[in-house]
C-alpha cells in the first residue's frame, strides 16, 4: 500500500487533490481511497487530506500517520503544523515553492530521505500561468507523477478531465503537464 498525505490551506484544493489522485489510481485498475481530515474547513485554515493506493481492497480507515509521500501545497505551514510527522525513511516529499529545499531550511528533514526523494516545484506559479489562479493542486499531481512514478501522468490528466468542465480541465492539464516536465528535467 502506498499512502499519500496532502497538507495545505482551506481553498487550495487539498481535498480535491487527494480525490483526483485516487481517480488516477482507479483508472490504472488499482484500489484507492481518498478522504479529507474532516475539520471545519475555513479558507486559510490548515487542511489535511489523504489518499491510499493499493492493488487489493483497502479496508483501513485510520488517518495516514506514516505516509510514503507528503505533498505540501503551502510552505507557510511549516511554522503552524509538524507536517513531516511520520514520513517514512524512504518516503517522498514534494513542496509547492519557488525556493529550493535549502532556501526553505529543510535540509535536516530531507537529508534523512534517499537522494532525489525531496523536491520543490513552483506549482502556484505554474498554475497562475496556465489556470490564471494560484491553485497548485493539479500541478503538484503532475509533479508527483514524475517524482514517484507510481501513477502515470496520463491517468492524472484523465482524472482532471473527468472532474472539471472542459476549459478549466484543459488549463489544469496544461499546469500538470508543465510541472511534470519540470520535475522530469530536474537533475
Amino acid at each position, binding site marked *: 500500500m502506498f499512502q499519500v498525505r496532502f497538507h495545505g490551506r482551506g481553498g487550495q484544493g487539498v481535498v480535491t487533490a487527494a480525490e483526483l489522485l485516487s481517480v488516477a489510481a482507479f483508472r490504472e485498475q488499482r484500489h484507492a481511497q481518498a478522504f479529507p481530515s474532516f475539520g471545519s474547513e475555513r479558507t486559510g485554515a490548515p487542511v489535511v487530506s489523504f489518499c491510499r493506493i493499493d492493488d487489493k481492497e483497502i479496508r483501513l480507515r485510520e488517518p495516514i500517520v506514516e505516509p510514503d509521500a507528503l505533498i505540501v501545497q503551502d510552505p507557510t505551514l511549516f511554522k503552524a503544523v*509538524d507536517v513531516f510527522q511520520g514520513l517514512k525513511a524512504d518516503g517522498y516529499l514534494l513542496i509547492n515553492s519557488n525556493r529550493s529545499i535549502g532556501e526553505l531550511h529543510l535540509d535536516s528533514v530531507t537529508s534523512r530521505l534517499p537522494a532525489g526523494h525531496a523536491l520543490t516545484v513552483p506549482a502556484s506559479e505554474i498554475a497562475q500561468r496556465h489556470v490564471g489562479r494560484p491553485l497548485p493542486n493539479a500541478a503538484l499531481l503532475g509533479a508527483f507523477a514524475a517524482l514517484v512514478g507510481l501513477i502515470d501522468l496520463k491517468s492524472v490528466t484523465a482524472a482532471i478531465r473527468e472532474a472539471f468542465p472542459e476549459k478549466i480541465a484543459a488549463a489544469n492539464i496544461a499546469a500538470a503537464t508543465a510541472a511534470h516536465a519540470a520535475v522530469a528535467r530536474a537533475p
Partner: protein
Amino acid sequence: MLKQIEGSRAMAEAIGLCRPEVICAYPITPQTHIVEGLGEMVRTGDLKNCEFINVESEFAALSVAIGASAAGARAYTATASQGLLYMAEAVYNASGLGLPIVMTLGNRAIGAPINIWNDHSDAMSMSDAGWMQLFAETNQEAADLHIQAFRLAEELSMPVMVCVDGFILTHAVERVDIPAQADVDAYLPPFEPVQVLDPKAPISIGAMVGPEAFTEVRYLQHYKQTLALRLIPEFAAEFRKSFGRDSGGLLRAYRTEDADLIVVAMGSVNGTIKDTIDEMRADGLRIGLVTLVSFRPFPTAALREKLTRARDIVVIEKSLAVGMGGPLANNVDLALRNVAAAPQVHSIIAGLGGRPITRASLHRALRRAFVQPWEGSHFLDLNEEIVAKELHHVRKVRRSGPTAENLLRRLGQGAEVAAVLEAAR
C-alpha cells in the same frame, strides 16, 4: 458499473435506482451531499417520476415523507445528529403507523458540546423508535443496503434507517460498483402499499388507541421485526445472487472459527479492526470479529451462535449511554443471557465525536483484553491528563466554568490538526 466515487454520490445513485417518488430533506452535515446528489438527479431528469420537496426543517422532512408514504408513494429522506432529534416525534410516528420510509442517517455525534464529526450517538438515540437500523461497513455496502432497505421496508411495511458513518464513508472517495437499473428493477418490485390514503376508497390512518389495543399494536410492531430477522438474510442472499456480492445480512463473521477472543463492532471501523486482527493473528493470537449489520432487529440468536465458543468478547462501539456504558455492549450481553459458561463481555468506547480509531490503539486495547481483561467501559485513547486536571480544578473551585471550554483551553491552539497527526502515536 465500477466507479471511483464519493460515498454520498454512490448512495445517491443507488437510491435513485430504487425509483423513489418523493424525496424530502433538510440539509445537515454530513448527510447533505446525498440529498444534493438526488436533488440534482431530479432536476436534470436522470431521476424521473420523483418529486423533490424542499422543507423548512427535519421535522417537516419526515412529516412530508410520512404523508407521501401514506398516499402510496415510495418516500425517502436523510438526516443526521440534531436533525434526527428534531424529527424525533415523527420518527416514532412513521414506525407506529407502519410506513415503509427509508432514511439515511449520516452518523454524527450529538451536542452539546456541538460536534459535526462521526459517532453513533444519533442512531442510538432512536434505536428503540421502531425503525429497523442497518449499519454499512463500506461505501459499497452503503449503496447496496439502500436497495435492500426499500425491499425490506415495503415487504414488512416498516421504516428502515440505513446508518452510514459520517465523513468516514459519506466523504470518502473509493471504488463502488453501481448496479444497473434493470437489475435493481428486477430485485425491487414497484411499491405495493398495504395501506393507502385514497379519496376513492377513504380510510383513516392514525387512530387514537386506548389500553384496549395499544399493547397489541406494539406487539405486532415487535413481531414484524422478528420477521425481519428471517427476511434480512433472505434478501441479502437474493442480493448476492442478483448482484454477485455479499452486502447486508444480519451479521458477518471474520476469522472467528477458533477464536478465543471475538470483537463485535458496527460500521466503517470494521475494516480497520480486520487489518488489526490479521496483524494479531500473525503474532499467534486467536482473535476474530463479528460485524453487526442489523442493530434493529437485534439478531440475538445469530449473535449467540457466533459468540458462545469464545472466552472473551470485546465490544467496540462509537456511542456512550451516559451513566450506563456502551449500548451495543449491553445488547451483546443480552445475546449471552442465560447461556451456561458464557464468555465475558468487555466494552470499549471509541471514536466519539470523530476521534480516529487507529490500529495502534486497537492493538494496545485488544492485547490487553487477552492478558488483563477489564470490567466496565474502557475509553479508548482517553486523555487522562486533561481529565485529571479538570477534575482537580472542579474540586478546588466552585465556579469552575464550562467543561468543554476548560478542556479546549488546556489543549491549547492547533489541537485540531495536531490530534489527527498524533492519532497513532
